């Protein structure tokens, strides 16, 4: 029932440049190691191998010197993409030695959170109940989300709704253009019908034309989306100093766009030319 591996990750968040500053002293042989986030390392102007002092407050209380063992890119978190990731990772005993209150022996036993990886993830609910029963004061939160409690599932539906509205607007635009185009060719169609070209052939011609315009338009849209992907990601990644990917144009999204464009183009082409194709030939000559 209880997971095979218990992992405690302790993160000293937002230490700030004032708390992590390069020290003049040379690194000693037994200095504790620390990993700094890329953002914190850049702000504090430190690199791997430097020794820095870390304290629990800006006044430098209980300051200790540690060695920067590495610099890491924080795992992108879409729920915190605007937060400045000024973070450091230390070994748990080192952090406890730093923050524990000497007057309170119990503080050496305390952690903020324990991450647990279960042997069988399906046991999460039962494990949570069991743990709450044994330790009523503990808050147990499964990290995997169902579709119902996932805010990104709601955002997904929001994006779909917006894209539907955009498609409706674009369809009206396409239809207006096709109507203008049909009007331009009123006399050409009249002549073609007069010389005996069947309505079926003319319908097929406008349908193919509508399809071609839709396919070319959709493909151009996909190309623009692919080109914009890098620009948008680079802009927002620079804006929020994160490695989070904001926009990803996948083949399935591209295929879905083209699949939606095809019937719309076909319908717009045929719909706009329909009055000219089924009307009386003389009326096409305005007679």
């Amino acid at each position, binding site marked *: 029932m209880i997971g095979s591996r218990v992992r405690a990750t302790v993160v000293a968040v937002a230490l700030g440049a004032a708390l992590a500053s390069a020290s003049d002293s040379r690194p000693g042989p037994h200095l504790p190691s620390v990993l700094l986030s890329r953002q914190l390392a850049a702000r504090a102007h430190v690199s791997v191998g430097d020794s820095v002092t870390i304290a629990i407050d800006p006044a430098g209380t209980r300051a200790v010197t540690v060695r920067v063992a590495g610099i890491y890119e924080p795992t992108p978190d879409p729920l915190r993409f605007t937060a400045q990731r000024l973070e450091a990772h230390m070994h748990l005993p080192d952090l406890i030695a730093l923050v524990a209150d000497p007057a309170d022996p119990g503080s050496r036993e305390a952690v903020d959170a324990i991450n647990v990886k279960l042997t069988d993830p399906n046991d999460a609910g039962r494990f949570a109940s069991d743990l709450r029963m044994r330790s009523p004061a503990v808050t147990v939160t499964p990290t995997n989300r169902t579709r119902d409690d996932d805010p990104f599932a709601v955002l997904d539906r929001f994006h779909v709704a917006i894209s539907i509205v955009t498609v409706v607007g*674009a369809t009206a*635009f396409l239809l207006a253009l096709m109507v203008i185009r049909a009007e331009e060719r009123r006399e050409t169609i009249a002549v073609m019908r007069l010389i005996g070209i069947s309505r079926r052939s003319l319908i097929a011609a406008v349908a193919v034309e509508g399809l071609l315009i839709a396919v070319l338009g959709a493909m151009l849209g996909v190309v623009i989306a692919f080109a914009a992907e890098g620009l948008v990601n680079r802009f927002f990644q620079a804006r929020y100093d994160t490695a989070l990917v904001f926009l990803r144009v996948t083949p399935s999204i591209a295929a879905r766009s083209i699949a939606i464009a095809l019937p719309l183009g076909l319908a717009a082409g045929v719909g706009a030319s329909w009055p000219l194709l089924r009307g009386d030939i003389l009326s096409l000559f305005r007679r």
Partner: protein
Amino acid sequence: MTSLWLAWRTTKRYRVRAMLAIVGVAVIGALLFDMLLLSRGLLDSFADLLRSAGYDVRVVAGEGLPIVRLPIAGAARLAADLRALPEIRDVVLIRIERATAQAASHTARTITIVGTTQTGGGPYTIVKGDDLPTSASSLDRCPVLVSRRLAASLDVGPGSSLQVSVRPEGIRSALPSIACRVAGVVNFYFAAAGEDSVATTMDALQDALGVPADAELILVASRPEAGPAAAVRAIERLRPDLRAYSNEAVLAQFNQNGFAYFRQISLVLSSLTMAFAFLLVATLLTVSVNQRLGEIAALRALGISRTRIASLLLWESALLVGAGAVLALPLGGLLALGLDRLLRQMPGLPDRLHFFVFQWRAVIMHAMLFAVTAAAAAGYPVWLATRLPIAATLRREVVG
């Protein structure tokens, strides 16, 4: 005949394409209007929600992570100390727990129980019954206010009995349930949709917990002459281990973090919809002018000035964009209702929080953006029509 009248006649003459253009602009305009509402809607709604509680400073434990509330050590004593500060008018202690509630012959339901020292009006509207009594005047061991949803599902009302046990459903616990009496049925401002909530006195919650429990949140009302900033400074001086936030600080933090996604999507989609509306109208007008080159050359040959031709095309653009923009407002309102309902399905969101909030500023901005679009969209067709070589165009029309 004025330019406006001439533009109206032209629009009527090409009514199918004009209708389609207006529909396109209206749909895109509705989306633009919604994005303008979204750009500040959630922030305004959140500000209303915060202010509805009547307190302007929130105090939490210094070590508290955003998602986990930690008890504030010595909260009762701290409340007394805070009340003695000259910057502070009122102090309320709050603790929130998961619990189960059961009424006769109904299955137990998991609830959120809020213990509070606040009496006489809180972040809720009383639908039936009375408010929580002050502890001094009450003989009830556990008076409770229940949400409308819970009252309906347990079929209880003012005066009904309710067994409350502070333990999540399905968890065995040695804590006994306590008998509570429903004082009133309320709408909680901060309750999430689908959440069953109960409010009671802090004493009753401590009874249910079986131990004296510290508050997790302290709400503070500053004195008007001091203001929330002075109250925050005073609290931080008194207890440096705690964190005190004024409503403005909470809003600023929310604007910076929680609201950033909606601000960005609003900006991106507003820009895209404007570009789309510009393209739509500019293309239609350009094609329309190209079809009417002969007609425009004839008007010029009759002595109609370039300014008048430009004015005619500007009015045509204004008619298409104006009609679309006006239609976009009710359409956008309806769309906003749907999108708001959709976004409010996010888990844990207070029922009173809205993403799309009507503001006159959004209407004015919408009108201004469309005026700019109409003028810009007419730019190229106007240039085309006013630079037209009259004789060559007429000759080409006749020969063609």
